[in-house]
């Protein structure tokens, strides 16, 4: 088929299309549904008290020090920026680098804050509580599952120009949500525990990204059957 005929066929087959959702619509939808997922998953664990007192008690238990509060905020920012970066990568010609770079910088800041908490814990100047064993590593993945799958679903509707990068940043966004959620629900507030059981799970994002990339690929469609090797 020559390109003239192809153009003629494509134009003849034209139907009106609805434009892709804007980044803000996608982020708002993603946030709302991720919160719903987090609450439902927490409820499934049966450890969250849905009362104002219960929530205040939970937050004050975990975020009673400045570094832990900033670390949690950094985690939320990593999730948003990574999701924004992944979205940009799914729209041809959009610049994703600023969002991706900021996401990685905040990820490093998050890790540094955890190290700071760990140093305080080791020096004994930070009072921490170890309550019970909580299956944190797996829980991070469970909490991350909903946001990750949802993001992949939303991005698949666009045209992903770099499936691997998009997959990696989608995984980072999902796992950051998972890590932040688990840090709220987890009965263990020690920095060492957060470092080993929560943050380590987050670092699996490149591997998970490789898997997601397979779902995000927009392969070229061969025009001739002979071209398929």
């Amino acid at each position, binding site marked *: 088929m020559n390109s003239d005929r192809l*153009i003629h066929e494509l134009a003849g087959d034209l139907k009106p299309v609805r434009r892709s959702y804007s980044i803000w619509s996608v982020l708002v939808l993603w946030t709302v549904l991720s919160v719903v997922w987090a609450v439902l998953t927490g409820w499934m664990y049966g450890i969250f008290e849905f009362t104002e007192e219960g929530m205040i008690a939970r937050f004050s238990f975990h975020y009673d020090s400045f570094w832990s509060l900033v670390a949690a905020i950094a985690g939320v920012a990593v999730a948003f920026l990574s999701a924004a970066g992944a979205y940009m990568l799914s729209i*041809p*010609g959009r610049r994703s680098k600023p969002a991706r770079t900021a996401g990685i910088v905040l990820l490093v800041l998050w890790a540094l804050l955890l190290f700071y908490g760990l140093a305080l814990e080791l020096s004994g100047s930070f009072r921490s509580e170890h309550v019970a064993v909580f299956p944190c590593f797996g829980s991070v993945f469970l909490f991350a599952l909903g946001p990750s799958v949802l993001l992949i679903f939303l991005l698949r509707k666009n045209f992903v120009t770099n499936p691997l990068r998009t997959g990696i940043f989608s995984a980072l966004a999902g796992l950051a949500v998972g890590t932040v959620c688990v840090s709220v629900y987890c009965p263990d507030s020690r920095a060492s525990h957060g470092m080993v059981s929560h943050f380590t799970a987050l670092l699996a994002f490149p591997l998970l990204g490789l898997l997601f990339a397979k779902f995000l690929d927009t392969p070229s469609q061969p*025009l001739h059957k*002979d071209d398929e090797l």
Partner: protein
Amino acid sequence: MAPDGEEQLQFILGTLMQKAQEGDSVSYEKLLKECRSLIHSFLAKRIRDSESVEDVLQEVLVSVHRARHTYDPSRPFFPWVYSIARRRYIDYVRKQTRIYENEVQDETMTHLPAKTEKMVFLDREILDQAISRLPEKQKLAVMYMKLENLSVKETAEKLSMSESAVKVNAHRGYKALRKILEKMEYTE
């Protein structure tokens, strides 16, 4: 083209795409024709073989069609379309690399002894018979490269083809030949 002219063209193409998103097929045809020359020069700078340029160009046009809902009319058109072209060009490069690697692997395999250290000898007559069943281009590529031991470059010159086209035809020929010989029960 002067920067002003470029900006003007970009604006026109953006407007045409906006109309295409609303279902205006006349604007869309105009847009694709304009895009074709842009994409062609983008690809021609990167791919030597003109047949491959045409193939990749068509793939880019199909991708532009599939991705047309992602274009935002408030943004410049060129980064959008070139980003799609770049993606398809990368796919092409990967495909070529894969073909080359398979070819090397196939060639290496033919020089290895069979599993049981028993060599399989093919009767030239049978081999000729199998080769004769190949499509013309594949047959010539295999004959020149394997039976007459010509290089890819020499074969390309003899057949008036590009080197990559020779490689592709030879690769397809080896695969088809293997299948034919398997049917004839002359391979393991």
